């Protein structure tokens, strides 16, 4: 009797172990199931490189180039801000900060990671958006720049914590060796620690960018949601994620618009998959 019970339990454990793989495949299959129907109507080329997104005109125009460029602009902006600051903060926490301050700083970063994105979006609307509007004398502060700043902020916890781990995992002997040769602490960080931790830091940057591309609510609330090809960072843009979130509520199940939003979902899934696999490879390279 006990043997049967244990047999059943161990099979359940194995099944649950496989559940993650099952869910990843399930998510991809259901995105494909709903999204691929679009390509009976529109060619993949017209979908990816079409310049206009008018999903409810007759006939609908479903080109996501403006959305891709919107996402790209906001992401590049966020990366430019968050990578130097995030890596700098990680170095400070891992190398420079006194032990007691270190714990406080880490708690602060954890706090930031815990704040729901809709709360950050709300705060961005009432503080950052008017600020951007006044500083640049714009008709509206709902711009790609506001989105970039907010998203940079949201990418920080990911970048800081993974980069910090990478710095910690550099063998102590490297550092001691550099000190013994008379290098200053900063020379050691710059010439020894950072190069030694480079693959982990690269992974941190990639995962941070992955977080930015996938972020939805905050970006929808503060980028202004204009689905046109952006010509500057000071105009409203719309990202891939915001398009899905803003329009799925109105799209009729089974319509071209509905299929197109799922096709955008496929694009996002593929991007995040590629980023995560590459980042994982980087982290594994470090271990071996």
């Amino acid at each position: 009797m006990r043997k049967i019970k244990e047999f059943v339990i161990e099979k359940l454990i194995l099944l649950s172990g496989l559940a993650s793989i099952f869910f990843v495949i399930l998510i991809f299959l259901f995105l494909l199931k709903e999204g691929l129907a679009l390509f009976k109507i529109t060619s993949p080329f017209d979908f990816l490189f079409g310049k206009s997104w008018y999903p409810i005109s007759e006939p609908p125009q479903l080109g996501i180039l403006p959305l891709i460029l919107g996402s790209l602009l906001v992401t590049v902006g966020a990366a430019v801000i968050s990578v130097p600051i995030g890596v700098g903060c990680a170095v400070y926490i891992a190398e420079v900060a006194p032990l007691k301050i270190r714990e406080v700083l880490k708690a602060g970063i954890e706090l930031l990671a815990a704040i729901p994105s809709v709360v950050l979006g709300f705060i961005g609307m009432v503080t950052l958006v008017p600020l951007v509007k006044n500083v640049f004398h714009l008709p509206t502060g709902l711009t790609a720049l506001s989105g970039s700043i907010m998203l940079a902020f949201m990418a920080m916890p990911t970048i800081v914590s993974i980069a910090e781990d990478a710095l910690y995992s550099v063998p102590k002997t490297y550092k001691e060796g550099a000190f013994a040769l008379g290098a200053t602490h900063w020379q050691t960080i710059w010439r020894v620690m950072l190069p030694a931790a480079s693959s982990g830091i690269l992974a941190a940057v990639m995962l941070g960018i992955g977080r930015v591309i996938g972020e939805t609510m905050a970006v929808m609330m503060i980028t202004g949601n204009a689905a046109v090809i952006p010509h500057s960072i000071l105009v409203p843009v719309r990202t891939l994620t915001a398009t899905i979130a803003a329009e799925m509520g109105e799209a009729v199940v089974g319509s071209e618009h509905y299929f197109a939003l799922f096709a955008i979902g496929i694009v996002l899934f593929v991007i995040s998959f590629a980023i995560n696999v590459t980042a994982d490879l980087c982290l594994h390279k470090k271990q071996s």
Partner: protein
Amino acid sequence: MRNPRRTEKIAFFFLLLATLLIVVPVGLIVVIIIQKGLPAINWQFLSDMPRQGMRAGGIFPAIVGTIYLVAGAIIFALPIGLLAAIYLSEYSRENMLTRLIKLAIVNLAGVPSVVYGLFGLALFVVFFKFGASILSGSLTLGIMILPIIITASREALESVPSSFREVSLSLGASKWQTIRHIVLPNAIPGILTGTILGLGRAAGETAPILFTVAAFYLPQLPHSIFDQAMALPYHLYVISTQVPNVDEKIRYGTAFVLLALVLVMNLIAIVIRTRFRKKKKW
């Protein structure tokens, strides 16, 4: 010019600056929300239905909806997540399959939240015909927090020393008995921490519930798991972008309640973690 000591000072100054650029805004955000949100909080705000198209009244149904959703998500995700963690920590070997499972967990954690929303819509709402309901929303959130629970539980299980297992096995206990009576009890604080962090994440997410459960304005409580429900994060989104002329007090009040809920959960998780670390005998 090339004085290494001075270079070091300048470099450390910029590192400190970078750190302050992150930490100071975080503090400001929390302070602003507490300062402007706390005065809006009273018993009526927490226990009343929203009125006049959400421009007055309270946020009671949104709080209840969020509690239902989070409870549903954890009922679904905790058993699967815990068993998966047991598999990875106690049964798996260093092989291709384990590598694949770990990669799948990383990917599951990286899928954009709005894509979970699409998936929940396609699978639970449309394919299984659950409709937009608490059930669909909970299951979607449950899959989303699965990687958090698996990762935290696995770490907790792996931190139990292998000598504990060896002693138990040498006394004639079976593998499952060892896990059930020796490994699991010693890993409970870590598992609890992961579970609470998962709860906090589920309570704060908006995109996955947009099309699977969230009701724009529903001034009543849900009657069954097949009903739509309001939820705090979606409610905050609605009153700050979709409904004009909402009193600022109500917006800040809602943001405060949501932030407080999430931060309290995180705080509990941190307290459990530190207390456990102090008590740990090995």
